């Protein structure tokens, strides 16, 4: 028996998983229209390669990865691109984003796929990674990080453990569970590909002990492959990547670091299947398993959904009664976010649509004062002090927040779940994080503009100095000429006369600089001119509503010039 570890805290919310497990995975069918956001993953949005009006076939590339951390988008079925426009997308912000809209023709005709290799093991690793990238796979557990990027960084480290994430600890969600029950062999095929790429010392599939069928199916599918199913007690959030790693290995991912830093790569079971489809069958990621559950649907269950399917279409497949629920949550009840527009599409990270009735998941009562009972700290899987974070978040004490490791909060919601005063703690942390990130950005920007301003000042000064140097050089040259002429003068009186004249001129040229009074006057004039110019720039900056930093810098310069001017005027006054 493998030694298991425990992570700090955790909670045991009611699981509510049986509702969606009564039936096997159902196909959701082809809706009239699919809406494919260009950004369904973490990283840069994909760039469209089709134009409105274009006919496309199932599996055809619609948008290509635009940078290293990005993922392409493919057509989930055949049809016509009807528009590329802003549509509501499932995102915590509730905003719209650019999407490719596909009018489905219902024929579901495949594009001709590149023939998969007879044996992927004969391909070079980079070629395999290329295939995974081209298939548009992004972490399907919810985070949506492009899988190829994660794997590539894995190949740069020595990986000793590959962990397949299967606890699915959030209440209600059973997408991974049903996948493990019904398609264990596919998962194992995907795991074999990952194993081939990463060459880990061991491969662990982590599961909570509330999924006996899945455990059985996986063990059966493994046969004699060197993959171990590790079962541990059910506790939320055991499916958090960091928590799962701690449970299985006893090691902690360093704050701000990646699992690869400690020789671990984690992949979700859904991702493993997508990798298998991409590498073994050459199919891009165009569908996923999504749980549809909550008391507002008559027939909850798991669906195989084409990406881009509008949520209301999917909900209707499960017998949605919109009058029974005022809330649509993408993800689980602990970490999911509400989607205000049911026409928003299912995307690569949509593991669950939850439509609870008010009775089922009541809206929180008004928050009471924090009584510092410490239940939140006991529940926090990151060993934070949520009550202190809450205190500092309300006081907007960024420094204290960072000192108390706000950024190690994984927003699992365990603290808010146990809080007897019903304080929406996570909401405060999100806001505080956003604030601090904004502050950092502002600071960077201000720093940037300060540097720019200083660089400009330096350039002006340098140019001034160069001009000065040139003037001096010219003068010297003139003197030299005069001297040379004087030296020759003995022989040629005319030349000498010219030389004398030149020398006189040179002396005259030199004279003003020699006279202290005139020099001061000139300096004063120059300073006045500079001041006037600077004042004008300041006024312009103010009028243009420039950033504070620039205005302050300009103000400072004006003040300096004024002082300089005053000091210049003093001796003569």
């Amino acid at each position, binding site marked *: 028996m493998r030694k298991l570890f425990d992570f700090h805290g955790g909670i045991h919310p009611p699981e509510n998983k049986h509702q969606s497990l009564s039936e096997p995975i159902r196909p959701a069918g082809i809706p009239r229209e699919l809406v494919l956001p260009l950004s369904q993953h973490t990283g840069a949005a994909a760039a469209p390669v089709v134009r409105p009006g274009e006919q496309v076939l199932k599996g055809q590339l619609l948008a290509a990865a635009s940078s290293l951390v990005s993922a392409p988008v493919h057509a989930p079925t055949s049809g016509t691109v009807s528009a590329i426009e802003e549509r509501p997308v499932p995102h915590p912000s509730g905003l719209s984003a650019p999407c490719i809209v596909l009018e489905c023709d219902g024929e579901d005709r495949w594009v001709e796929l590149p023939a998969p290799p007879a044996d992927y093991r004969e391909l070079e690793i980079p070629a395999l990674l290329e295939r995974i990238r081209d298939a548009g796979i992004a972490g399907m557990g919810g985070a949506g990080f492009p899988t190829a990027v994660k794997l590539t960084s894995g190949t740069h480290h020595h990986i000793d453990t590959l962990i397949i994430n299967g606890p699915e600890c959030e209440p209600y969600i059973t997408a991974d569970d049903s996948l493990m029950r019904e398609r264990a062999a596919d998962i194992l095929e995907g795991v074999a590909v990952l194993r081939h790429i990463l060459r880990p010392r061991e491969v662990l599939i982590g599961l909570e002990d509330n999924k006996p069928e899945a455990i059985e199916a996986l063990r059966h599918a493994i046969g004699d492959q060197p993959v171990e199913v590790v079962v541990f007690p059910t506790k939320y959030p055991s499916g958090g990547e960091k928590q799962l790693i701690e449970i299985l290995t006893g090691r902690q991912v360093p704050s701000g670091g990646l699992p690869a830093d400690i020789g671990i790569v984690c992949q979700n079971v859904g991702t493993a299947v997508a990798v298998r489809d991409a590498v073994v069958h050459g199919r891009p990621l165009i569908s996923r398993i999504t749980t549809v559950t909550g008391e507002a649907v008559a027939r909850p269950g798991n669906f195989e959904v084409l990406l881009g399917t509008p949520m209301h279409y999917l909900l209707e497949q499960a017998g949605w009664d919109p009058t029974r629920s005022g809330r649509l949550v993408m993800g689980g009840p*602990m*970490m*999911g976010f509400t989607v205000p527009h049911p026409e928003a599409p299912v995307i690569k990270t949509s593991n669950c649509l*939850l439509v609870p009735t008010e009775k089922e*998941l009541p809206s929180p009562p008004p928050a009471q*004062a924090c009584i510092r009972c410490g239940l939140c700290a006991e529940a926090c899987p990151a060993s934070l*002090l949520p009550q202190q974070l809450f205190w500092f978040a309300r006081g907007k004490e960024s420094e204290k927040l960072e000192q108390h490791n706000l950024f190690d909060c994984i927003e699992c919601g365990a603290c808010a779940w146990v809080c007897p005063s019903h304080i929406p703690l996570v909401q405060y942390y999100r806001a505080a994080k956003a604030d601090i990130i904004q502050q950092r950005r502002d600071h960077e920007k201000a720093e940037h503009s300060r540097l720019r301003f200083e660089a400009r000042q330096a350039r002006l000064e340098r140019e001034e100095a160069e001009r000065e140097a040139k003037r001096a050089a010219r003068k010297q040259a003139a003197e030299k000429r005069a001297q040379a002429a004087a030296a020759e003068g003995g022989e040629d009186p005319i030349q000498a006369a010219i030389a004398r004249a030149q020398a006189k001129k040179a002396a005259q040229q030199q004279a003003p600089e020699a006279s202290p009074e005139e020099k001061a006057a000139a300096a004063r004039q120059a300073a006045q001119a500079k001041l006037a110019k600077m004042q004008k720039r300041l006024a312009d900056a103010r009028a243009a509503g420039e950033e504070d930093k620039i205005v302050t810098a300009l103000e400072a310069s004006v003040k300096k010039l004024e002082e300089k001017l005053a000091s210049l005027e003093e001796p003569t006054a």
Partner: protein
Amino acid sequence: MKLLRVSSPHAHGPNSTQRVMQQVLLASLPGVFVLTVFFGFGTLVNILWAAVVALACESLALWLRKRPLGFYLGDCSALVTALLLGIALPPYAPWWLIAIGVASAILMAKHLYGGLGYNPFNPAMVGYVVLLISFPVQMTSWAPPRGLTENVPGLLDALRACFLPGQFDAITMATPLDVLRQNSGLMMDDLWAQAPQFGRWAGIGWEWANLAFLAGGLWLLYRRIFTWHAPVAFLASLALMAALFYDGGSSASGGSPLFHLLSGATMLGAFFIITDPVSSAVSVRGRLVFGALIGILVYLIRAWGNYPDAVAFAVLIANLCAPFIDHYTQPRTYGHRPPAREDA
């Protein structure tokens, strides 16, 4: 169609502040019962009158601060304060004494600091100490337990003692802790034999009251209303201090560990007072330190101080230290080395 937008988590545990407070009230019942059996109805009247005053003060403060009454009264925290003060005050205390204590607790120690959750000191203990300093005579007269007096006052007597204090002649008697403090020259065993106040392990009545509060406290622990850290650290350090100074039961002895564990407000303090979350340290390690500190202070004050019981002072001093304890006991966050402190 537009749907609701709310932040996660969307599920919430069954816990509520109200429920926490109600369970604390419930858990005190055995202790209150034992006190009533041994010392008569005084404690019960104390509690009830304190509750009335507490609710009135709370309402007044909320009204002055323009807060919704029903919502804030619902957290029952004022009742818990009243309960603790009612138990801590001597039975048959006059109504005005209780009223002053409760008013100081609720108005001064709680609402002046911003209400529940913001008070750095335990309100009930502030009320207690205010009274102890202002009215030492009334505060140090404790009734004799059943067995040492024929007529333990009934409900009517208790009401009379409270509301018509002039018409009631309370019989009082030194508490076992007083007897021990004033002991000069007697070996422990002799003292035990001579002074009538002593029972099997500690004072008559007191030992059972303490055991009853212990039982209530264990139930609260079982219900996970608080964690074991502060109470256990407190009891352990108190017992350790007592053991250190037990001195084999000589005439200079400070009393046995068992005596200290079952005397005065020890168990009430351990499970009902120092577990007040608001004014204690926050982390697990912090609460260990917090509890241990109180244990040491209680012993020091009992042995060398001049007050009938030490829990109130010890708790207030520890409240004062709580922010420092917090600062030095920040837990190690996942993925971090022990937290770096900006050392003062």
